[in-house]
């Protein structure tokens, strides 16, 4: 085990997989940085510092610095993947799926099905997502749920450095297209990461971060830490919460969720996206459909309101879920009918 930052877990895992498999290639805007400048290549090594040293080690054919052209980047990832490579495309901000949605939704996600199962498309689209930086409506969104709604995509949302390592390696070795959601506010988070160069975490296996018998809290990405904080606070008052980190929203570990709800009978779902037709409503529907008999209270969702992400500190603060809001939601489900 070594203590590693979330962002370094991204970088190190890709680097090692590139050493292991020459079919792994990286592409995106400024993934090298400094191309065509006096400072020269690697002047920055990716604006999130997740590809430092790649260009030097693997050269321009495997570390492809692209113009600002998201449709071409993601489309090319699809073409590379159909041609036997394992591309990892970076969308500097997840919001830019808006620019290249056709390539994600109509192309990459559907190749295998449309072609009658006769092909594979092992492309990874890394999406740097989430709010917390006052980056306003076009640089702060969490489109995890939107992407989860698309058949054909696997959607991964790591919340710790260890999960980054295990899930990213799994994604690189997986034969299906994977959306890899990295929360920008987690990049500085440190945690233990296994030294094992074959460390993988299978998709569809949630992680129990806190155990308790009174309520189930479902979360992913940056919401996990908030849910843990709320759970710790509630524990001081003798309220026990199962905090479940979904890890992957597609495939979804329904069993872990339903098993927990069977015991607790109460569910709070936390998500960073607006509430309508969302991951939050999807999870509420899941427990309502499949764990109805166990429920002691209606599920409650903690999400932002049905608005774009606002800019000002006060507004973004009010917009986002936080541990207090989660705690209040837990108290609400506990108080139901009692």
């Amino acid at each position, binding site marked *: 085990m070594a203590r590693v930052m979330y962002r370094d877990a991204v970088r190190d895992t890709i680097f090692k997989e590139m050493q292991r498999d020459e079919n792994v290639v990286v592409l995106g*805007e400024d993934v090298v940085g400094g191309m065509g400048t006096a400072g020269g290549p690697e*002047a920055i090594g990716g604006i999130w510092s997740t590809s430092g040293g790649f260009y030097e080690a693997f050269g321009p054919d495997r570390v492809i610095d692209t113009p600002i052209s998201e449709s071409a980047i993601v489309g090319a990832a699809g073409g590379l993947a159909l041609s036997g490579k394992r591309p990892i495309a970076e969308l500097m901000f997840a919001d830019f799926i808006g620019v290249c949605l056709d390539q994600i939704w109509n192309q990459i996600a559907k190749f295998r099905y449309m072609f009658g199962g006769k092909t594979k498309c092992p492309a990874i689209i890394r999406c740097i997502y989430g709010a917390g930086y006052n980056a*306003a409506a076009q640089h702060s969104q969490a489109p995890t749920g939107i992407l989860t709604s698309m058949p054909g995509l696997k959607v991964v949302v790591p919340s710790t450095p260890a999960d980054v390592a295990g899930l990213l390696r799994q994604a690189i070795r997986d034969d299906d297209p994977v959306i890899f959601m990295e929360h920008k506010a987690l990049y500085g988070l440190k945690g233990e990461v296994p030294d094992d160069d074959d460390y993988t975490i299978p998709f569809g296996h949630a992680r129990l971060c806190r155990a308790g018998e009174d309520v189930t809290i479902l979360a992913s990405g940056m919401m996990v830490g908030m849910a843990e904080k709320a759970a710790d606070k509630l524990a001081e008052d003798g309220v026990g919460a199962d905090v479940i980190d979904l890890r992957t929203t597609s495939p979804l570990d329904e069993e872990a969720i339903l098993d927990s709800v069977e015991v607790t009978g109460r569910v709070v779902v936390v998500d960073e996206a607006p509430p309508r037709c969302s991951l939050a409503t999807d999870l509420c529907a899941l427990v309502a459909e499949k764990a109805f008999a166990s429920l002691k209270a209606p599920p409650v969702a903690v999400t932002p309101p049905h608005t774009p992400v606002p*800019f*000002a500190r*006060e507004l973004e603060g*009010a917009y986002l879920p936080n541990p207090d809001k989660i705690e209040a939601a837990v108290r609400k489900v506990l108080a139901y009918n009692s």
Partner: protein
Amino acid sequence: MQLSRDDLLQAYRRMKIIREFEERLHEEIQTGEIAGFTHLYCGQEAVAVGVCENLTDDDKLVSTHRGHGHCLAKGCDVSGMMKEIWGSREGLCKGKGGSMHIADVDKGMLGANGIVGAGAPIMVGAALAAKLNGKGNVAVSFSGDGACNQGTTFEAMNMAVVTKAPAIFVFENNHYSEHTGVEYAVGTEKDIASRAEAFGMKVARADGTDFFAVHDTMREILEYVRAGNGPAAIEFDTERFFGHFEGDPQRYRGKGELDRIREERDCLKKFRESVTGAKLLEGADLDKVDEEVLAQIEQAVQDARSAARPTAEDVLEDVYISY
């Protein structure tokens, strides 16, 4: 064209406002009071002002992430912008948009934009509306050397040509898109105008650090487009004096590059030399403008600091007109 004394003073004032607005933000950002990502326009002032001095409020403008200069040149209120950047509810966009989304539709300013390449198609729509209205108005988009690589920009150019839209694509080539050099990212030998030309429109090129070159080129293109000849594009060669965003270590720059461009390619310095050299204005006239602008910026910052803050309830407003 010979500009009047008043025209010259106004152009200088506008460029100076942009310069001091940005220089001040550069300082204020270090204090941590301003939230979010800020991309400063310093160095490119002559482009925004040289273009916009030719426009009226009925001509539309679509801007970029580096939009402060475009907004100020199009007439957005200095104090309203400062308040917006500070996230005040008294800001031009009530603190909801911030630096990257400043807009003032009454001034024909249809928004800065956080999505690189999103502006050109929107501008074509505004141009088509101007065509429908039949009053000889135009629409202008600013795009960077990076944005010119987006498919959206290509589509917009072709559509403007086939619809004969009164659209003007202004490309500001400041040699960098984030950390990448234009020589790497733009395949046509760094040249953007030739791309626009290939789409079938009239193009021009000029030195974007020379206000007079910008102003004259824009005036000529504007006459052509206003006359109903269809779209046109202009590529301006310019410089950005700060990093891509505030906090950028700028390791991609050459040694001494920043000093050199500040020394040799400063559009304000060039303007001053040119107008005083030709005895169109006295140095003292410009000094007076400098002083007034500094005071105006100081006042705007003070206003922004003490302006009302937004509240949690404000989050819910403005999503729709009717609910």
